[in-house]
């Protein structure tokens, strides 16, 4: 699974990436986590409010730090 976090490196983007990392580790899920900070790439996903989360090329979330329940929901949908 490929997860991308879209955001210009603000505090909430960091919080988002940490939240994702935590869930991935605790679940032992194989996933590659990358941060996308380039504006061109961020807007190419059609995201207007950061942080955004992209899983396997699909935008699943924008505009806020996702909660644990939300992240688990996305990951569960993938399995």
């Amino acid at each position, binding site marked *: 699974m490929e997860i991308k976090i879209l955001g210009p490196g603000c505090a909430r983007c960091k919080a988002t990436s940490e939240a994702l990392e935590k869930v991935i580790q605790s679940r032992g899920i194989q996933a590659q986590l990358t941060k996308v900070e380039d504006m061109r790439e961020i807007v190419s996903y059609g995201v207007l409010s*950061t942080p955004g989360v992209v899983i396997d090329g699909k935008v699943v979330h924008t505009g806020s730090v996702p909660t644990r329940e939300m992240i688990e929901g996305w990951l569960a949908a993938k399995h």
Partner: protein
Amino acid sequence: MSTCCPSPTPRPSVGPRPTIWLATTVLGLVAWFAVYWVLEPVSAWAVAQLPIAPESHLEEALAFFFYDTPKVLMLLTLVVFAMGVVRSFFSAENTRRLLSGKREGVGNVAAASLGIVTPFCSCSAVPLFIGFVSAGVPLGVTFSFLIASPMVNEVALGLLFGLVGWKVAVTYLASGLGLAILAGFVIGRFHLDGWLQPWVRDVRMGNAELPDQRLTVVARLRAGLDAVADIVGKVWLWVIAGIAIGALIHGYAPAELLASIMGKDAWWSVPAAVVVGIPMYSNAAGIIPIVEALIGKGAALGTVLAFMMAVIALSLPEMIILRKVLTVKLIAVFIGVVGLGIVTVGYLFNALFVA
């Protein structure tokens, strides 16, 4: 805003049932109004119990502090909660859809209004700007959004309402909205699309199918509570500090001095307040209690509000972020038009509200 990214996190509804949430919300509102109702007599009684000479400077300062602190924090909580619930109905993506294809004029009005209710923070200014422009939202309309969004915010409105009164709060809302509409329209008339950074024009904005974030009533109420925890949690200390300074001014500062510097007769004070306010960067919460005390001591309302608008609507950090998409020339036009607008609003307030 220095309370950057305050938009609440939408959560799936788990836990108690909707009826419990609704009942708790109604009870909370009733309790709020009950406490608010008795606040003035209770605080007056409390100050009267203190071993201080009545009608002394200290007594006046303490009375101001002990009444205003709970009052302002309560009003702030209510307004932020309401705004959090309202914002859960909007998103930047939906706003873009509503605005694309809108003509100038109508588009400016819509953009400024949506700027108030759409959750947005300055760290998202760049993707938002590009997203709007590439979706065919005219440049001036985009600016109307970007001006209204920070200027007319719930913290400023809630505090003005609580400290200076509803008339001023409503006039602030109307003039902030009017300024965003007009300034955006004027910038649009200049046809400055060539003054964007070159790369912005070539960007291809994706059109991602975003997840449907239809929220339940519980999730919306929760969004309101999250907003309160987030925003009030961040600014309460500022508010108390501001009121403490305000209390000192209230009790001690000589009225004549302030009136001569910031009063209506000093015509130059409005543009001076705007020039001083533009590079400053603060949130409304820290400023408004001081604003109220200044007004009480004879500073003209328009001058003080122009200062406040300049501080929260135009800020150096936001300009640095926008520098990525706008050329310096365009930023200068932006500051110039909005700055002039604020000066006009300042004079207007001074003329409308005769102390």
